[in-house]
């Protein structure tokens, strides 16, 4: 052809297209799935595993599932029966909280949701005020909304609390309360005073060395013994104290990591300016350290959130506990799997989105020192 014989000046020849086999779908397949005999084997193995696992799950959860109905007779029992979830949905979400009072929980959710969104949107201006509101004002509002017995709201006893609502209460109270305790413990662990340091190390290592379930047992069995005669705490409060002690030890370690990551020059600079210990910590060190450990705090929260399921062992009916309880109802025996799958999905959504958010934060905050 004429084109082929066209003479080019040295260096002016246009780039040749890449070989056919390395571009497009075929090239992608070749590179990523069939590059070697071992890769061929792995690909077929993977396809086989997917074939075994995915179609049955899909047909059970979606295709063969029953979606509408009111009783168990509406379930064909071929696939999942989501009627079970529909019937027990209110219990799974709120426990036995009275129907007429549910708006209180929902109102708290809305306040929390709106202020969290304000915090998460990068360009929102009054972040500090929202933070102060969330940490100091919101707990008071939430307390009176949930418990009642004031401002004309009727009292709702804690044994009526349950479901996802209880899970959120335990996890959020645990993490919010453990943050200040954890900061104090972390400072104590890095203190130069040997007695303070020893006490903090013992406290942290004690709670980190034992499983949460023994802490919960302790708080539910031994706590009443610790208190003077006549003082009696509610079961939920006892569980909350246990969760707080436990998570504050983990929080202390997270904060300590942040403190260690602050370069020594920052401490020395603050001291050279004549700041006292507490001023140095509050104005120079902590703001930087806490910023560094936000992903760590989120990860601790994820761990705590999953661990709250343990409270069902001491007789509180959280999200999982409610599912377990509904599946033992006389009319609904044999629907445990649907309950587990629903609860697992709920936890998964929360934990997965939080872990994605913490990864995003880690990337964003990785400014490098």
């Amino acid at each position, binding site marked *: 052809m004429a084109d082929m014989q066209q003479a080019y000046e040295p260096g002016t020849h246009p780039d040749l297209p890449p070989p056919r086999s390395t571009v497009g779908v075929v090239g992608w397949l070749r590179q990523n799935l069939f590059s070697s005999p071992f890769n061929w084997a792995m690909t077929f193995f993977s396809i086989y595993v997917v074939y075994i696992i995915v179609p049955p799950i899909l047909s059970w959860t979606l295709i063969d599932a029953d979606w509408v109905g009111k009783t168990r007779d509406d379930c064909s029992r071929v696939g999942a029966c989501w009627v079970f979830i529909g019937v027990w949905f209110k219990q799974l979400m709120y426990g036995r909280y009275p129907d007429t009072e549910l708006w209180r929980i929902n109102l708290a959710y809305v306040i929390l949701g709106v202020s969290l969104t304000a915090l998460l949107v990068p360009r929102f201006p009054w972040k500090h005020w929202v933070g102060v509101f969330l940490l100091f004002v919101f707990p008071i509002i939430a307390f009176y909304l949930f418990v009642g017995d004031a401002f004309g709201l009727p009292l709702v006893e804690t044994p009526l609390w349950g479901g996802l609502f209880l899970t959120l209460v335990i996890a959020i109270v645990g993490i919010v309360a453990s943050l200040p305790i954890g900061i104090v413990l972390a400072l104590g662990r890095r203190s130069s005073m040997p007695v303070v340091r020893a006490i903090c190390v013992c406290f942290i290592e004690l709670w980190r*060395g034992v499983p949460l379930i023994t802490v919960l047992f302790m708080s539910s069995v031994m706590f009443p013994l*610790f208190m003077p005669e006549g003082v009696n705490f509610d079961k939920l409060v006892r569980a909350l104290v246990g969760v707080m002690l436990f998570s504050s030890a983990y929080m202390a370690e997270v904060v300590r990591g942040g403190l260690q990551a602050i370069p020594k020059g920052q401490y020395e600079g603050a001291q050279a300016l004549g700041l006292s210990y507490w001023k140095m910590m509050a104005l120079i060190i902590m703001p930087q350290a806490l910023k560094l450990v936000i992903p760590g705090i989120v990860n601790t929260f994820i761990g705590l959130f999953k661990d709250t399921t343990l409270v069902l062992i001491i007789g509180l009916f959280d999200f999982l506990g409610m599912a377990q309880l509904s599946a033992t109802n006389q009319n609904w025996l044999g629907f445990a799997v649907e309950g587990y799958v629903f609860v697992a999905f709920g936890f998964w959504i929360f934990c997965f989105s939080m872990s994605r958010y913490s990864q995003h934060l880690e990337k964003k905050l990785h400014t490098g020192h």
Partner: protein
Amino acid sequence: MAEETKQAPPPARPPIWNDPVYRALFFQVLVLGGVILGGAYLVNNTLANLERQGIASGFGFLERTAGFSISMTLIEYSEEMSYGRAFFVSLVNTVLVSLVGIVLATILGFIVGIARLSSNWLLARMAAVYIEVLRNIPLLLQIFFWYFAVLRNLPSPRQSVEVFDSFFLNKRGLFSPAPVFEPGFWLIPTAFAVGVVAVIFLARWARKRRDATGQPFHTVYVSLGVLIALPFLAAIVTGFPMTWEYPVLKGFNFKGGSELIPEFVALVFALALYTATFIAEIVRAGIMAVSHGQTEASYALGLRPGPTLRLVVIPQALRVIIPPLTSQYLNLTKNSSLAAAIAYPDVVLVFAGTALMQTGQAVEIIAITMAVYLTISLLISAFMNWYNEKMALVER
């Protein structure tokens, strides 16, 4: 210019309430006093409460008859035995479930972690999905799922799931062949022990020779050979003094062989699958932490891919992997306490559950239970610290 250097006056000592030394002392006394006072208050309340409720105190109850049965016992136990004995039985159960869980989770975790780094897109995706799904679901839920949803729905013993006609899985548990030792069997473990000693000396000799002459020696292959050949020889000499006892269906259940109760199977499954996701991420991070330059430098020195992996990449990756791996082992051990939720007889269920209910001695029993986990935690971390030190970089 003759200038008289003026001696600066010694800094005035600050008043005693501003002197850092005294301040530190004061605060420490304050904190210590507070802790002691708080502790005394709690102890005082507890003693008063115990007296009022008429609960005995002290560890004397460990000698008394327990009077309850335990569904899985590896060491001899019966209802007439003491609380102390019941404690050891449950301790062995906890240790067993943790060890089996750790081994399985490590194997699975390494496989999945490496699969996630695979160049095969499908395999890497599958590993990622497995990790992201299982590690974001509470462990207790997973234990419930395996126990209540899967194992409870298995067929009855008559329709067991069979593998090779020797393993049977049904709702009563997992039945497998059990070894039966005949007289003369002691020679085989002895031969194995001799082999171990021989291998240690061999490795020392090979190392010395390599340091002196530079000649490599196939220590691994020779050691494997010795470790297999010696017990095998012993077995031939004694005429294979071990047989397998197979489980046989008799009536409504299997007899003979070794039996694993369903609680154990569910617990190990859930623990291993859950912890493996974390181990997989650790392994992935460890391998990715070894920079590609290390591999290239090793190739440039003329090492082939096998030795490169064994001598350059893996030792460096392990250094990154081991510390977080330790904390995963600790987590698994602590998580094994969730056994209480499905009635697997571990320390928490037997001791903090049944024994606590019967004796009411909450303080002693919870203290012992916590001490068990603290001890296990400290032992594992001590061992891992020792190993970590051995593996740590030796810098010039």
